[in-house]
């Protein structure tokens, strides 16, 4: 007895409803020989499908057969195999399964959570903004020249100071004394200026001269005031 395995892959929602197979049996007419196309049950409880061809007494040949089976989930079907008993050989075997597929029975697979990915904002990156600053070559060159001049001047100043350090020691002391004297002299000068100020004065005489001796009253104003008084009295009358 010999057998060859062929796997059957389970696909959700698929029901098998038939098996088609074809092979060529090569044998001597006098030899007993049977060939079984079969599938084990997935739970190893036996065969869920088995079709046996008895070639005993025949000369062999090519057989092709379709065997309908009741609809059964492909998950119930285990691996298939071709079992041979007797003297003979199976050539060019083909085993095909007919099935129906119901997509409604597909179980939804849980999708993995998508991790939150931080969004990189290039415009908020200090390095990027710094690199985006205007890059005018003249500015760099001017800056370089200024820096170079400053550096040179600083170097010169340091050198001069270093060379005149000894002489300046006495000079600085003397200059401080002179400054103090000059400042004192200036203060005295300023005070004397205020003390010595002379305001020109005397009597300021009247210079306005009235041409008319009598200034008459404004009669229109008197009339208007009389009307106003009368109005006020009338208004107050109503509250009495």
């Amino acid at each position, binding site marked *: 007895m010999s057998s060859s395995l062929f796997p059957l892959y389970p696909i959700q929602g698929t029901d098998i409803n038939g098996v088609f197979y*074809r092979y060529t*049996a090569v044998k001597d007419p006098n030899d007993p020989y049977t*060939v079984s196309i079969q599938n084990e049950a997935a739970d190893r409880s036996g065969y869920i499908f088995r079709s046996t*061809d*008895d*070639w005993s*007494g*025949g*000369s*062999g*040949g*090519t*057989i*092709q*057969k379709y065997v309908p089976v009741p609809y059964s989930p492909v998950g119930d079907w285990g691996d298939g195999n071709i079992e041979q008993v007797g003297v003979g050989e199976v050539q060019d075997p083909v085993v095909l399964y007919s099935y129906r597929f119901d997509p409604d029975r597909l179980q939804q697979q849980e999708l993995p959570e998508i991790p939150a990915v931080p969004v990189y904002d290039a415009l908020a990156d200090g390095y990027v903004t710094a690199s985006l600053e205007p890059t005018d070559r003249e500015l760099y060159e001017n800056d370089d020249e200024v820096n170079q001049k400053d550096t040179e001047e600083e170097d010169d100043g340091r050198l001069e100071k270093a060379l005149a350090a000894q002489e300046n020691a006495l000079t600085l002391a003397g200059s401080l004394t002179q400054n103090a004297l000059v400042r004192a002299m200036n203060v005295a000068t300023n005070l004397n200026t205020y003390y010595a100020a002379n305001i020109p004065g005397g009597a300021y005489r009247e210079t306005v001269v009235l041409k008319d001796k009598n200034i008459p009253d404004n009669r229109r104003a008197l009339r208007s005031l009389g009307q106003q008084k009368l109005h006020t009295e009338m208004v107050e009358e109503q509250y009495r």
Partner: protein
Amino acid sequence: MNSVKIVAAMCLLSGGAYAVDVPIEGTVQSRCTIDTDTPGVYGNPNAYTLTTAAADGGVMPITRFDVTLADAYYAKVTHPDSFSAAPTANATVTFTGSTEVSSVGDAAMSGYEAAKTTFGNSTQFDLTESGSVWLKTTSVATNGGDKAFPSGTYRSIVVAECIAK
């Protein structure tokens, strides 16, 4: 007057007898069907030969016989002896051929090939088992004198019959 009335009434009664035809129908389902499984193609291995042999670029026609009643029919296949269509009529073409079992639907049919009978261009198989059997036919046409076939399309017909025993 009364006697006349009686005679008339008797005449009317005798004319009332009539007959009815009752139909009987029946349908006989076919228990042997024939289908073309594979149409044949002529290969042209040389200028003067047309053949269905696969080795020569041809395709052998395959006929399927389905029998639902065992041991009731013969399958008879006749390979062609002339072209049904050809560019020019040519009486010098020689036809040969044969028919053999291509495959069976049941191991018990493995004896069909050995038990077949041949007469003329026909091959007959005894369908002793119910089920399907596929028969393939070889056809070879050779032009006389090894003359080249004129260019064009050549067509021939394999005749398959299911004959009741």
